[in-house]
Structure formats: C-alpha cells, structure tokens
C-alpha cells in the first residue's frame, strides 16, 4: 500500500515541515514593531516564555541521580509511550497551521551557545525583549505524573541542567525553577539547592496539583520561600483528564477554560484559606490564564464573602483586596472587541504595579509587547512598568539590555 502525503497543506512551498526555518525571519514584522515603537528606550522583560526541554532530554538526563530512571528516560524512543514526562493530547499547532511548531527542528543554529539560548535570543531580539523568564513546555504537566518520584527526579535534573547550561551562560535569561509541590519535603530541598543560583528569580508551581495549595503539608514550602525572599509562580496548564474539563470535546474549549480554571481553583483556595495572612511576605504571581478571570473571581468571592465571613475566618479584608496585592502575567490577554472591559480589568488589578508583560512565546497564543504598548488607556509610565519595571522590582533584576538596543542608543 502506498501512502500519500498530507495534501491539505495547500501552500506546500511555504510549509516549514519541508523548508528550513528561521525564527528571526518569522518574526521580522515584530522587529519592525520594536523599531517603529522605539523600544530601544524601554527595558522589556518577558515573565513567561518557553523552550521545549524534551529536545534536550538526553542532556537533562545526565543530571539525574537515579541511574535506573535515567536509563528509562534515555530508552524512551520506543513507540507508544511517553517516558518520564506526560504527553498532552491536543493540537497546539492547529494541525500545522501555526508553522513554528513544525519548523522548529528545521532551524539551524551555531554550535555555541546552547541551541536554546540561540533560539531564545532570536525571538527576544525580534520582539524587543531584553530579559526573559524561561519555562519548560511538556513539564508543565509533570505534576500530573502518577509517580511522584518521577516528578521529583525529573524536576531536579531539569533544574540542574537549566541552571548550569542556560542560566549560567546567559545574563538575559532567568527562570522561576520547577517546584515539585506534590512532594513537600523535596520541594523544600529544591528551594535550598537553587534559591541562590544565578538567574533563579523564583519557584514555579505548575498546573493541576495532587493536593490543594492550602494543604498543611505545604506550609514549610511557603515559609522557606518567604525566608529566601523568593516569589512563587502559579503557571496554569490545562489537564483534559481533570473531571471538571472531561466533558469538553474540543481543544479550543479545554484550552480556553482549563488554563483559567486551573488558577481559579488555586487562587480560591489560596485566598479563602488565608494564605496571604499566614505568609504576608510571600509574593505570588499568577501566570498564563489571561486577565478576564481575575475580575470575575474578585466579584464572585467578594459577594459571597460578605454574606459568609464565618467561612473564611482568617481573612481581615475582602478577597479582592488580597488579589489586588498579587502579581499577574498578561498573556493571553483577551483583546478582541473588549477595550472597555480590559480597561476596567487593569483598574481592578492595579495593573500599573501588579501586572507583568509576558509573551508565552513560542506557544501558539503568544502576545507581543505591542499588546501592552498600543493600549490607548495606558500612559507611558504604566507601559514602562508593565513591560519591564514591575518584573525588575518583583525579581530584583539587574536589567540587561539587548545588544541591538545598546547599539541603537549609542548611534543616537
């Protein structure tokens, strides 16, 4: 039997599945935006961007302590199983329509520096981004792995690899490193091992967890983060198998709801159980759920809280008052036909001090800095804060400007 190719890609001449691919070329219009908008005068920090750590899995596994698990990971080429990292069902690339997915492994990079650094610098330079907080991709679902010991071993190996091979090597890249929340005593050890490493600006809880965030077993994690002055990020993820999402039949549905729902659950537990009162110095950032969920949740929780204060005795003010003191990343910002709602949202979350620009690049629903820069209701001070200033404060960053901006500024 002879097999035919995918004849539905009508413009096969442009199909990156068969062509060489280059990030700078794909993003040439982003670079033009950066120049037209004079970003050379702006410090831009992207607080949520990604790489595909599974592409470097053989390297990462060299950092794994357990030789049996390392062997299992290295033998994961066997057809039909995912190895150490759960694989998500879903078509992020829209069946090839978002071409950078297929193009990714056709991209040629020099031998040095590490491939992930070159790729990151290409999109950062195109967008006008100076520094970026880099996160993994498939590992966002690692917390759903049924074997918690695999989650811990993978997390430690990844954090070591990331720290040594990427963060040590590039001053423009930082990360909130993976925190295995499902195994609290290991999470505590992870904080001790990585809190002082170069480029580590916080710790990251990913997606749906096996125990709620207010579980008593987690209290020492939060105390330790507070001790180290490290923020905690909640990076949302969808998990189609979660019972709340299982009735949804389309990727668009599970993606649209799953990311926000994930953080709605964690935030509700976080606030109603008085975590901000228990750990007043611990800063939290809520990542990749868009923004529309925040006013929704503020209104719902405030309304019920005023009737049922006895249900949440640790609270000394309304839920929204706590939420307004937390940090939020922008992407994927709900931008279609809702300018007024967006403006109200910015007011409700004190965006000027609490909102941090994020692209989520290279994922399909990425946002450029122009999504903030072009908002007519923001003044220049607010734009500067959201695009970089707030990240600089939260992460205590020494800003490193990109080379092209330094050169452009030197030229005047």
């Amino acid at each position, binding site marked *: 039997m002879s097999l035919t190719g995918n004849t*539905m*890609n*009508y*413009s*096969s*001449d*442009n*199909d990156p599945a068969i062509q060489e691919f280059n990030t700078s070329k*794909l993003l*040439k*219009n*982003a670079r*033009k*935006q950066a120049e037209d908008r004079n970003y050379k005068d702006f410090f831009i920090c992207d607080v949520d961007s990604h790489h595909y750590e599974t592409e470097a899995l053989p390297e990462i596994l060299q950092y794994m302590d357990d030789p049996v698990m390392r062997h299992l990971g290295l033998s994961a080429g066997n057809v039909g199983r995912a190895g150490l990292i759960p694989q998500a069902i879903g078509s992020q690339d*829209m069946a*090839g*329509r*978002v*071409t*950078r997915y297929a193009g990714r492994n056709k991209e040629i990079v020099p031998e040095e520096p590490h491939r992930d650094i070159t790729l990151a610098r290409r999109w950062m330079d195109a967008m006008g981004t100076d520094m970026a907080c880099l996160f993994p991709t498939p590992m966002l679902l690692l917390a759903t792995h049924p074997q918690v010991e695999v989650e811990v071993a993978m997390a430690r190996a990844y954090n070591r690899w990331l720290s040594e091979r990427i963060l040590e090597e590039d001053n423009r890249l930082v990360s909130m490193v993976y925190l295995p929340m499902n195994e609290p005593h290991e999470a505590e050890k992870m904080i001790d091992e990585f809190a002082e490493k170069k480029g580590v600006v916080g710790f990251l809880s990913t997606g749906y967890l096996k125990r709620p965030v207010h579980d008593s077993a987690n209290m020492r994690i939060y105390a330790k983060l507070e001790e180290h002055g490290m923020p905690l990020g909640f990076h949302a993820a969808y998990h189609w198998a979660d019972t709340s999402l299982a009735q949804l039949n389309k990727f668009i549905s599970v993606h649209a709801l799953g990311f926000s729902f994930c953080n709605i659950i964690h935030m509700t537990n976080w606030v109603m159980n008085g975590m901000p009162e228990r750990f007043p110095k611990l800063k939290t950032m809520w990542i990749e759920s868009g923004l529309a969920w925040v006013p929704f949740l503020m209104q719902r929780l405030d309304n019920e809280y005023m009737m049922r204060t006895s249900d949440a005795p640790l609270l000394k003010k309304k839920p929204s008052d706590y939420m307004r003191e937390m940090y939020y990343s922008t992407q994927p910002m709900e931008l*279609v*036909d809702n300018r007024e709602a967006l403006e109200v949202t910015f007011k409700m979350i004190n965006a000027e001090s609490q909102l941090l620009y994020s692209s989520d690049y290279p994922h*399909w*629903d*990425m*946002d*450029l800095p*122009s*999504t903030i820069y072009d908002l007519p209701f923001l003044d220049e001070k607010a734009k500067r804060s959201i695009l970089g200033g707030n990240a600089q404060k939260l992460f205590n960053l020494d800003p490193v400007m990109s080379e092209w901006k330094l050169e452009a500024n030197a030229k005047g």
Partner: protein
Amino acid sequence: MPERLLCAVSDLSDKTAKICEVDGVEIGVIRHKGDIVAYKNVCPHQGGPVCEGLKMPQVCVELDDQQRALRQTFNEDELHFVCPWHGWEFKIATGEAVGDPKYKMKRYNVVERGGEVYVEV
C-alpha cells in the same frame, strides 16, 4: 492612483503568495480562482506575516437529518490564508477574517499589463 510594479505575471502561482516589497511595505500576491489578488503582508491581529502562512480550505461539519454531527470536511471552494503567528484565518477572495469579517487584510487593487503585475498604492 499611482501604480507600482510588483512582479511578472509568470512569477505568480496559485499555491504560494509571492512576497514583493513596495516602498518598504511587503505585499503578498497570489492567483486565486482566475484572479490576481494582493494583500499587505501584515496581519490585522498582531502584525504577523499573514500572506506567508499556509493556505488551507474552510473546515465544515456535516450534520445528518437530526442535526447530529457526522464528520468534518474540507471545503476547497473557500480557501484561507492562515496567519502563521496565531492561526487567524482570512478568506483569500475577500481578505475578511473568518471569525469576524470586520477584521480585514489590507487589499490592493491589481492591474495586469504587458505581462507584469502592478498595484495601486
């Protein structure tokens, strides 16, 4: 309206838009159902190179007489540019976004003369 030379007619295909530059602006030009159409290579969404994306047919769902979904199909009579940045789709015939026609690619009038393609700018 002033005209600018884009390319030779013989450079065009009905598969892939040819990207030409006029006064610093990229314009994608393609044959479509016997016509030549030209659009600015900047997406109305966030500015992606929309003419360089894949060309895909409309996706439809077939329902049976009781409104039950039978299967999905491609409608090859309606072809779309798919912007490679986020996947917004635009009808090649009109430049309108499939999700909401109020979002439109910028279209140029095309003049074909002496084996060459010109746009009015």
